[in-house]
């Protein structure tokens, strides 16, 4: 098996300025299962083929989530301190017990409808502010409107509070990136995390006092009151949903606008109504693969892709690589806006498939519906700045100019 010393897969820099897709394509072709080491002794196995990644997701018994889903999330032999108490780092049966109330209260049909309407209202309001000739950073002006709408509904807060919470979660996940964290990244991470916890804890306190259960936090608070859930579990999962929702879809939105800019002829088919927004959304999710990988730990020897990975190993499942696997996708390295039978795996698979996947999909679809119906369009005017992270593929700057829809149509020719 290939062993890579000092592997670029650890490097946030490599994902911002290098070509991780090309590197992963080589691994997929020659070394679908490989070992990646860092000088300090950290080591993980990397799965790069779709079938292997899928198999690892499904085998949640032998591939545990309890050590955190990010490299450095926790260290052997220490589990994440939230292990077993927060969805993303819990294995069944604890996972099942937490997932039920979170899914029921946050991601049911009525909530989804309400979320979609709020997100659409926010996007429309943001676009309505813009005039032809305006220049703006899409990643800061429009993209945050998506998760803001979700927070307003799930957490039952106003747009201003939602914006404050967004700022804090952004620092938490992007703490290795100077754009968010300033000069003292670890201090920023710690302070931002506590700010989010404080915010959610205050909301829980309010809902315990008022008895309201008409948003997700309220429902979890009433679970606490009835003794079905500890307050810490309610708090940790509020944090989990806030971070999961905030730090993904805005990046997908920015990458989507950049993709539309580069694929304007294909995009015009959506504008003209020849390609459905559902199909386009699925391809944008495959193409952007915002969450690049997740990490697991083997609790037994596991055979994957013809190799045996011993117990007690870190294993990384590369979504971004699986989504470019020629064994599953025709022309995997081309953006095909009407790709049929799209089996994209951007949200993972199995019991840990992103609980917010339906909301995230709706957010992106709503964005592209509103962009397609808009009488204007965005043109990218400067090289986008990529987020310095190997975990989230995103943009911290996307400078665009507003042009008339007819002018954009001419650009498509």
């Amino acid at each position, binding site marked *: 098996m290939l062993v890579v010393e000092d592997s670029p897969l650890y490097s946030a820099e490599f994902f911002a300025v290098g070509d991780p897709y090309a590197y992963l394509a080589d691994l997929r072709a020659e070394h679908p299962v490989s070992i990646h080491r860092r000088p300090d002794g950290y080591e993980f196995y990397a799965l790069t083929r779709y079938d292997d990644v899928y198999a690892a997701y499904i085998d949640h018994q032998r591939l545990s989530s309890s050590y955190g889903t990010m490299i450095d999330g926790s260290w052997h032999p220490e589990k994440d301190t939230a292990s077993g108490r927060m969805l993303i780092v819990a294995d069944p049966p604890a996972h099942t017990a937490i997932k039920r109330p979170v899914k029921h209260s946050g991601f049911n049909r009525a909530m989804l409808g309400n979320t979609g309407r709020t997100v659409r209202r926010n996007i429309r309001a943001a676009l309505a502010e813009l005039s032809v000739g305006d220049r703006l950073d899409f990643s800061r002006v429009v993209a945050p409107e998506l998760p803001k709408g979700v927070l307003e509904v799930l957490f039952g807060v106003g747009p201003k509070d939602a914006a404050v919470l967004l700022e804090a979660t952004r620092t938490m996940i992007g703490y290795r990136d100077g754009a968010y964290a300033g000069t*003292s990244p670890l*201090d920023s991470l*710690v*302070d931002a*995390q506590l700010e989010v*916890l*404080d915010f959610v*804890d205050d909301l829980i306190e309010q809902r315990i006092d008022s008895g309201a259960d008409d948003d997700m936090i309220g429902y979890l608070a009433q679970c606490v009151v009835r003794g079905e859930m500890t307050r810490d579990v309610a708090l940790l999962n509020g944090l989990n949903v806030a971070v999961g929702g905030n730090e993904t879809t805005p990046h997908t939105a920015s990458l989507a606008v950049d993709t539309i800019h580069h694929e304007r002829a294909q995009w015009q088919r959506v504008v003209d109504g020849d390609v459905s927004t559902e199909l386009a959304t699925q391809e944008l999710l495959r193409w952007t693969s915002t969450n690049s990988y997740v990490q697991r730990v083997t609790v037994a020897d596991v055979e994957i892709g013809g190799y045996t990975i011993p117990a007690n190993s870190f294993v990384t499942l590369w979504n971004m690589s699986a989504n470019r696997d020629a064994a599953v996708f025709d022309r995997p390295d081309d953006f095909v806006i009407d790709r049929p039978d799209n089996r994209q795996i951007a949200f993972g698979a199995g019991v840990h498939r992103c609980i917010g996947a339906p909301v995230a999909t709706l957010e992106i679809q709503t964005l592209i519906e509103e962009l397609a119906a808009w009488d204007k369009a965005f043109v990218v005017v400067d090289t986008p700045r990529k987020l310095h992270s190997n975990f989230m593929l995103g943009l911290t700057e996307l400078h665009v100019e507003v042009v008339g829809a007819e002018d954009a149509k001419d650009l498509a020719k």
Partner: protein
Amino acid sequence: MTDISTAMIIACVQKVLNKDITEETDIFAAGVDSLAVLRCRALLKQQTGVRVPGHVFFGGRTPAGIAELIGAENAGR
């Protein structure tokens, strides 16, 4: 600005962890995690009105170290 003493920090951590510690105990080795820091902070704020930044706990690590950092951050203001 209100001073936050080592003794006050010890009292809060003991209350949250429900075990005895000294001014030189590494509070994270003693079982403090992010949620415990959150509860300690809330207690200190109740008593003094001051919200201690989270990184001070992680930087100070012991009640004495944390109190010293709080003093240093205040002096720098």
